[in-house]
């Protein structure tokens, strides 16, 4: 336990010391918010309205896309924070950790929690943009969504961690992760609704943890009780699996299981690293 906290705290401490990283990570989401939220919201809404059943006029794209962009930030930060494992390998610090008596699973969990926390902090920092975008979310809802953001951060960090434990160069990691990150964003319903996808794409959507993370975040942040069924449909908030609508609980369960499996795989990878 002590080992997990130590590794976690080290990552946080380093995050707060690295001012460039702290603010640099802001640019990408802001860019996306500008493009998707500002620039494209009009056309998106018209596009949707065309294909939408009647009664979906209350669709507000910016309100839809904001949680998606927060989720995207979580995805980016979590996975790229896991790169610290590769940096630690490069700078030798990983050796200090590996020869210590900390259990390998604690190393994996500590690193995963470190990235997830950093990602959550960055995600929450985006909340500052809400008034600028002319949005208004319930403050309680914003507070309630944080644990879910953290959970999604854990899932994505564990994914990044697995890759980082397998790959030895920063370049190799960045390349691999780029290939991974883009589909994970676009096929998650973060930026546009994911209804009516072809079957094979729908399959990717359904195994993508971001899908469920984004969905939970939207369900918590957007006041869905007051939205009509067609709008809900239009926003893609009616994900169904095997012909049945899935609940927040099931989504959380899925993300939890996903995280556990990946952390265990990373642990095995850490163990093998010195076999």
């Amino acid at each position, binding site marked *: 336990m*002590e*080992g997990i*906290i*130590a590794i976690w705290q*080290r990552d946080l*401490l*380093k995050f707060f*010391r*690295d001012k460039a990283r702290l603010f640099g990570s802001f640019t990408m989401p802001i860019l996306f918010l500008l493009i998707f939220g500002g620039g494209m919201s009009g056309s998106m809404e018209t596009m949707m309205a065309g294909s939408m059943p009647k009664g979906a006029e209350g669709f507000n794209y910016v309100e839809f896309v904001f949680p998606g962009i927060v989720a995207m930030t979580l995805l980016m930060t979590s996975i790229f924070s896991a790169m610290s494992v590769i940096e630690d390998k490069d*700078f*030798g*610090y990983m*050796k*200090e*950790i*590996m*020869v*210590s*008596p*900390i*259990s390998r699973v604690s190393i994996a969990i500590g690193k995963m929690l470190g990235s997830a926390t950093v990602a959550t902090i960055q995600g929450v920092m985006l909340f500052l943009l809400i008034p600028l975008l002319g949005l208004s979310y319930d403050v309680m809802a914003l507070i309630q969504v944080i644990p879910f953001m953290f959970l999604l951060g854990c899932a994505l960090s564990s994914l990044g961690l697995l890759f980082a434990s397998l790959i030895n160069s920063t370049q190799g990691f960045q390349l691999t992760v780029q290939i991974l990150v883009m589909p994970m964003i676009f096929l998650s319903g973060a930026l546009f609704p994911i209804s009516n996808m072809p079957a094979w794409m729908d399959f990717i959507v359904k195994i993508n943890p971001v899908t469920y993370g984004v969905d939970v975040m939207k369900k918590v942040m957007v006041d869905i009780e007051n939205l009509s069924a067609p709008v809900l449909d239009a926003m893609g908030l009616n994900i169904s699996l095997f012909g049945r609508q899935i609940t927040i609980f099931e989504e959380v369960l899925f993300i939890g299981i996903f995280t556990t499996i990946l952390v265990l795989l990373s642990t095995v990878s850490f163990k093998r690293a*010195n*076999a």
Partner: protein
Amino acid sequence: MESIISVKNLRKSYKNTEAVKGINFEVEEGEIFGFLGPNGAGKSTTINMICTMLKPTSGSIIINDYDVSKDKDAVRGSIGIIFQENTLDEKLTAHENLMLHCRFYKVPKEKREERIQEVLEIVDLVNEQKQRVETFSGGMKRRLEIARGLLHYPKVLFLDEPTVGLDPQTRAHLWEYILRLKEKEGITMFLTTHYLDEAEISDRVAIMDQGEIIAIDSPTALKDQLGGDIIELSTEDNEQALKEINEKVKEAKVTVEEDTIHLKVASSDAFISSFIKTLNIPITRLNIRKPTLNDVFLAFTGRKIGETVKE
């Protein structure tokens, strides 16, 4: 004396090569054990196996009564390692690096601060502890790493080329610290180095070559085993001199290295006066000395320590 490390039939093979070919040795508690060998001899492989970083193909390693293959965490807790390369977190301060180490090794909370100050004092870094490691010089980093290696009171401290890349003055200082440590704490030290004069401080040295341990004894015993004296000389015409030596001198073993001729004799006192008379070529330089570990190394491996094994 109890042995703190006991290595039996240790073997490591890779696909095509056998890096370590079934070696045996013991390290006694409280001694400084020098582990020498040319590059590619299997030294690093052996150390990595002892430090739980590499899985042996076969054989057993017992450290501090714990089996390395079964009780990894207990072994890890009993050893401290100073790696050849820097393994500090440069973005953190010296104190933060040490505190993290305490937590990794489960040093009791109430003892942490006290121990940190204690090891910082040993390596003279008390006043610099709040500075980030990136501002430190090479020597300071090394000292900090040694301090860190001591924090959890290891039974054995592994020093893998601890002075590599340091200037001679810093090197000398570092050895002072290390010797002070040995006297104060009685820690067993397992040392590898390329500087054979540094290995002289060892109580015993093992020489490894091509995956096998070819000699193991105290430096004095090894040098005595070699015996006699070494005469180094340069002449105005080495080729001619060599010819003469080979003709007239029977009792010396002759080797040539660059522009110096080495003669190994049982006793230089009796040999030297007659030798000088027999040689017609004028001598430009003459030096008589006792064998060093370098000579021992050369005699056993046929190579100098910096040379890589040629396939």
